[in-house]
């Protein structure tokens, strides 16, 4: 199949970018989207041109490294699918495909289609963990966990941090990401001691990173390759309200001092 690509090319963070048109001929429908880009890049290298810079790692849909906006949709046209798991058979011969990086102030472009998602890492670092003494692992069944909570926590923990939710959000909000990271711990017993200080810290860091503000559209969930639910956003909101209204101040001070 023959495809026309319009790819965002940007030399570095400071340069001004632009779309460049490439004709990708003789593409197999069995190639993944990234394999198609590999072929295009090999041809570019042979012609002595700079290959298209694109983020990728595991190519199994579990690492969260790849991610571009394809024809206006984060991760392309298929639901619950990362770019690496998207195949060219999802397109038609002769299609024009526009490829753009995630667009958000919090995600500055490093080069071409690669953006800096360090903002998401800093939200995690602000509180997306539990403080546990080191030592031998405790017995797995020592702490009872309700089955429903285990399932919901697992669903939230499926987030691979790719940033598609931010890219698809009309407001460039990171609420789905942050809420998944808040909820996966808040639903489990191990996450309870820091639950209310965690949500405050992570929301404060999210605000600091100049993301936009959630207005409950739900486009984030629709493009999420792991279908992380917006129910987690309600969980974050609930914990945030509780942390302000009824969380005990002295407990919060204690945890903050220890952390």
């Amino acid at each position: 199949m023959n495809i026309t690509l319009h790819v965002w090319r940007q030399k570095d963070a400071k340069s001004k970018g632009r779309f460049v048109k490439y004709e990708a001929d003789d593409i197999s429908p069995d190639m993944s989207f990234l394999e198609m880009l590999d072929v295009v890049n090999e041809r570019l290298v042979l012609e002595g041109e700079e290959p298209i810079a694109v983020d990728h790692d595991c190519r199994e849909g579990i690492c969260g490294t790849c991610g571009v906006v394809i024809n206006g949709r984060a991760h392309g046209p298929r639901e619950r699918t990362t770019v690496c798991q998207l195949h060219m058979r999802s397109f038609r011969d002769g299609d024009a495909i526009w490829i753009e990086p995630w667009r958000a102030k919090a995600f500055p472009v490093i080069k071409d289609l690669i953006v800096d998602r360090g903002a998401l890492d800093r939200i995690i670092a602000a509180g997306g963990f539990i403080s546990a003494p080191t030592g031998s692992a405790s017995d797995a069944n020592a702490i009872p966990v309700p089955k429903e909570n285990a399932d919901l926590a697992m669903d939230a923990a499926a987030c691979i941090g790719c940033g598609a939710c931010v890219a698809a959000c009309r407001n460039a909000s990171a609420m789905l990401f942050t809420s998944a990271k808040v909820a996966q711990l808040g639903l489990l017993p191990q996450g309870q001691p820091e639950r209310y200080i965690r949500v405050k810290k992570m929301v404060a860091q999210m605000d600091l990173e100049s993301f936009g503000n959630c207005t409950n559209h739900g486009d984030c969930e629709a493009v999420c390759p792991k279908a992380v639910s917006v129910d987690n956003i309600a969980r974050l909101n609930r914990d945030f309200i509780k942390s302000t209204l009824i969380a005990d101040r002295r407990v919060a001070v204690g945890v903050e001092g220890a952390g």
Partner: protein
Amino acid sequence: MESSAISVAVGASAAKRGGYVGAFYGSTVGKKVVMAVTGVILVLFVIGHMIGNLQIYLGAESLNHYAELLRELGHGGLIWVVRGGLLAAVVLHIWSATALTLGSWAARPIGYRRRQQWQESTYASRTMRWGGPILFLFIVYHLLHLTTGTVHGDFVVGDVYHNVIAGFSIWWVSAIYIVAQFALGLHLYHGVWSMLQTLGLSHASYNRLRMGFAIFVTFIVVAGNISIPLAVLTGAVS
């Protein structure tokens, strides 16, 4: 990078500086909660207002007596308490919306070349920021029209029934009210669901009822209100 700081002062240390209210409202989630709480107040008012309006079908005496009752409750003081509360809710609602909107607009300085494909968002959710200002203009018009009578050609102080009939008999006045009710409907449809989400009212056992609840509230308010200009125009009420 300017935002590379990770250690954010929250909780007690932030409270020492800005106070708990400041720390809460300073965050984006806090502003959204303010929008939701003021939204609840305004939705309740709109429902009550609609039910009050329906008394037009009971006749002139009934409606005028109800209006007089509202004006005289608490020796004429209660209406000003309610008006003050509503004004505060409207101001906080608009203030928070503006702050959140400006933040969101700044969060994507370079947009997408290809128009984004919306998956889940609705026409209602995408037009909240247009619907708000439209409703504000309508409320100003509505107050000048049926509360103060400033823009009403045939206003009689105290005769609410007459003022409504005379006002809605002009077709374009009714048209403004009907169009405004559709704008209100769109705002309510997304707003009611959205405020439940923002207040954290979400659970698997009732989540599928939330959209139905939003549609129900929207429908009764819009249908109840629109019925009045329609009834006047068709001569069902005169």
